[in-house]
């Protein structure tokens, strides 16, 4: 009951704040963005602690993937928000002269953000930055699966940001359900396709637009690179991208690798080396590696490996430490394609390597599966690049690297098909939380008589010409000369 009252009360307060119009001013938006910067600055250590508690993230990893990313985005928004807010002039056909057309971005109003547990700080604050930059009031519901971060956000955000306009509501599915019953002007969801469906169905009742940031099995294609050192760089980037960010528990994490038979062993060797160098060799002492978020996910991952034919395909790692919820970086070579590990998003430190006779087959391989959030491809073959670009579909395509698209503010971040819809980051975050209002200013003169009934042949002729923007013809028609020429 208390939770219901909290949701209702917060909602009412947010509406009131939005109606007061104060969230629309540049000053308010900038002040909030600055508050986020200050919050991160003041509480860096607490954030490291919270992330360590929830996921055992190393502080450097936490800084790279959470604090640093948000600092960068907040700074970027801070420097651009005024420019983004300015109405955009658009050209208007001469026929409407004198007129002025512009697109005026306005905040939606009350927005709801559901964030996820794997990057509990950045996936909460990144959309929040967009919502605030666009001038909205916000309720943020962090994931209850990262409780330390959730309670950190709930405790700290009200101390820094305008607490009548930005609220954090903690809770699990009961609270989520209560929140979804309210009428929002926009819902931004990061999480799984299953919950995405529920969120969108609830939004449909109120005709609320949604952005769904889901996941998917993001493949990495490794072409046979002519230069052996390039394979090493690729393996390094794969090892860093797979196990680095939250130990594979990332929506843009590498799910599996496609490679030609003949270079599979070189890749595996190189990956092993990097694993040892990056994360150490002992499963009981992997301090540079995040743990699995909870028992349920640990069991889910263990079950993936329990399938005997999958277990048989393990070529590296595979040890589990249930007490510490730790799973060692694990490489599998050609697990059966119909096994769960190849049909479900893995979301953990298991890396299947699938070999193909020819790397060209990867296109068909990808196209027979749902569209992923990202495709990574290591290749120097320009034709193959073009082929990947035009013949497959995914949220994004990254050549010769992994994960780095997340820090690129000028690129839209978002999925397609099963990996979601809508996009954010940089200006796209602002757009995601703004309505682009079309504004057309007309004057009372001149008045084009042929617009109005009663209709006759002259007016028909006029309109025909007008739609062709045939100004010369119009002049002739108006001066009465048209008929002599026609």
């Amino acid at each position, binding site marked *: 009951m208390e939770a219901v009252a909290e949701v209702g009360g917060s909602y009412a307060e947010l509406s009131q704040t939005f109606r007061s119009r104060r969230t629309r001013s540049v000053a308010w938006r900038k002040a909030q963005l600055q508050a986020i910067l200050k919050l991160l600055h003041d509480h860096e250590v607490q954030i490291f602690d919270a992330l360590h508690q929830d996921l055992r993230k190393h502080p450097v990893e936490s800084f790279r993937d959470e604090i640093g990313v948000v600092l*960068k985005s907040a700074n970027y928004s801070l420097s651009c928000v005024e420019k983004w807010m300015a109405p955009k002039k658009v050209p208007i056909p001469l026929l409407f002269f004198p007129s002025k057309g512009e697109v005026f971005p306005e905040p939606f109003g009350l927005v709801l953000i559901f964030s996820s547990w794997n990057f509990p700080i950045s996936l909460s604050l990144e959309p929040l930055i967009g919502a605030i930059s666009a001038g909205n009031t916000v309720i943020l519901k962090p994931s209850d699966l990262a409780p330390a971060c959730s309670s950190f956000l709930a405790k700290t955000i009200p101390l820094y940001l305008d607490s009548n306009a930005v609220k954090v509501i903690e809770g699990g599915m009961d609270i989520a359900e209560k929140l979804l019953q309210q009428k929002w002007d926009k819902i931004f969801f990061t999480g799984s396709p299953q919950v995405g469906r529920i969120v969108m169905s609830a939004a449909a009742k109120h*005709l609320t637009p949604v952005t769904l940031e889901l996941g998917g099995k993001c493949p990495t294609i490794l072409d046979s690179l002519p230069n052996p050192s390039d394979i090493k760089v690729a393996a390094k980037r794969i090892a860093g991208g797979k196990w680095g960010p939250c130990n594979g528990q990332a929506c843009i994490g590498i799910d599996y690798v496609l490679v030609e038979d003949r270079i599979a062993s070189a890749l595996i060797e190189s990956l092993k080396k990097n694993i040892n160098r990056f994360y150490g060799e002992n499963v009981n002492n992997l301090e540079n590696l995040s743990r699995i978020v909870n028992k349920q996910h640990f069991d889910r991952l263990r079950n993936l490996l329990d399938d005997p034919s999958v277990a048989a395909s393990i070529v590296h790692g595979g040890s589990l430490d249930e007490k510490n919820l730790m799973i060692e970086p694990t490489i599998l070579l050609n697990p059966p394609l119909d096994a769960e590990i190849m049909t479900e998003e893995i979301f953990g430190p298991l890396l299947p390597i699938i070999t193909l006779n020819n790397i060209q087959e990867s296109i068909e391989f990808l196209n027979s599966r749902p569209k992923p959030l990202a495709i990574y491809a290591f290749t120097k073959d320009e034709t193959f690049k073009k082929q990947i670009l*035009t013949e497959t579909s995914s949220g994004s395509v990254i050549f010769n690297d992994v994960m780095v698209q997340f820090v690129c*503010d000028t*690129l839209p971040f978002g999925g*397609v098909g099963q990996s979601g819809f809508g996009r954010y980051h940089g200006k796209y975050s602002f757009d995601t939380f703004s309505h682009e209002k079309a504004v057309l200013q007309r004057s*009372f003169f001149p008045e084009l008589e042929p617009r109005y009934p009663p209709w006759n042949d002259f007016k028909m002729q006029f309109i025909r010409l007008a739609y062709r923007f045939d100004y010369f013809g119009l002049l002739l028609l108006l001066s009465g000369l048209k008929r002599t020429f026609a």
Partner: protein
Amino acid sequence: MLFIAGISSSLDTMSGLSINNNLFALHCRVGAGPASVDRALRNRFANNSTAPLQKHQTHLSFPYHHRYWRLLCSQPCSATLTLMAEEEKKTSDIERASLLVKELRECFDSGKTRSYQWRVTQLKSIAKMVEEREEDIVTALLKDLSKPEMETFVSEISMTKGSCKLALKELNHWMMPEKVKTSMSTFPSSAEIVSEPLGVVLVISTWNYPFLLSLDPVIGAIASGNAVVLKPSEIAPATSSLLAKLLEEYVDNSAIRVVEGAIPETSALLEQKWDKIFYTGSKRVGRIVMAAAAKHLTPVILELGGKNPAVVDSNVNLQVAARRIIAGKWGCNNGQACIAPDYIITTIDFAPKLIDALRSELKEFFGEEPMESKDISRIVNLYHFTRLKNLMEEDKVFQKIVVGGQIDQNQLKIAPAILLDIPEDSQIMEEEIFGPLLPIITVENLKDSFAVINSRPKPLAAYFFTDNEKLKKDFVENISAGGIVFNDTIVHVTVSTLPFGGVGESGMGSYHGKFSFDAFSHKKAVLYRSFKGDSSTRYPPYTPGKQRFLKSFLNGDILGAIFALVGWS
């Protein structure tokens, strides 16, 4: 993953309920059945007896339920037979729809629709079709809506042609990848945004501009390289069947199809997995469409309507303002347009002058006897005629008619009607009018109009006639609407550089011009990196030095980054 189990059951129940409440709407705006069904529905409406229906609504399957349908269709003596026949029909509808999507998906997968050449050929064919079959189009619209030829030409034929031509002219440019800058954190790299088709899309259109509102989104879908199914509204049957015939004749049927039909056909289509659904119509059906899309995580564009206000200041050129209001209200399908002004707000003092001007300009446009005028559309069908009649005949409303309001049920005609100062709580001020009735609300001070507008759901368009620059600025900042036009009505739809679409209850997503292309495209982010420029700081084992480096790096602080690298900081 987070809270799925607990939430799903209760949400299912809820969506079930809302869907049922909306079946009326689906029937009225998207669907239609045999005449007897129509009558049955109207009777139910008249008696307000939704209760017997609700009894059957506990666990209906979405989006169309056989028991409900049976209730409407059944003859007393053959209930079981009807039920069986209808079950069979439902199954075959779904099978047909699923087969159709499968065929189109195969075509899309073949890559044929992606080529520039294919897109251009189809668009040219549509332009040619509109050019060559102008007469057929005019005739169909005359049949469906008695739409005057000139109106058809202006708002259906020319606009469609215009969209085609613009797409043909700009397509090359639109399809080009957009280069974007990359930041230092990914140096050395280059990046671009590539527009790719979404796949197989569904366009559900409506009856008031049945030609334009069908083809305009289809043009966008084709320009973006999608395979597309169009479901025109069966409430404009002549245009629906003309579209089916013409598209079969003119465009590539392996990728572009028309499905005609009513609720069962629409429901069967909505059960399929689409890559985008573009719907034009009512809020109530909009909800059904979006809920159906949610099952497949399909993005939607909803072009709905709303009560569009037109605010009139006293400092305006009265004659011009009156003419532009009339052109937008009655000159647009007799008020049956989603962007037509729904009601007027003006000051108490100015209202009589405005009414006089409207009255005399109406006479100018449609003559002394507007019921005889050939320059005005009729009401689309008996259901809508009755709905409008009821709005007008509500007790406290009827006596407020100050101009017009004559009706002729046989011809489904309603003359332009102006109503002054009707009560706020009357039905006519509650729902979208979508017809030739124009209420005028008066306020003490023009600025009070903002509160009137903001107390209602966000409209698709808001019009403001004034020369006061300060008020204009306030209006833009205070009024939320899909689009705003000063000193005119409806003309913003013809400006292809402006996005057209609603906000809040007037819909989501926008189209027209380049926006149509974007509406049916996925914007794929592409980042090109080289094998060089690999900083060890990205990788574990993590050290304090790496942290210092990253801090500077992500903030774009080059000096700091260098210092961290050489160990000075």
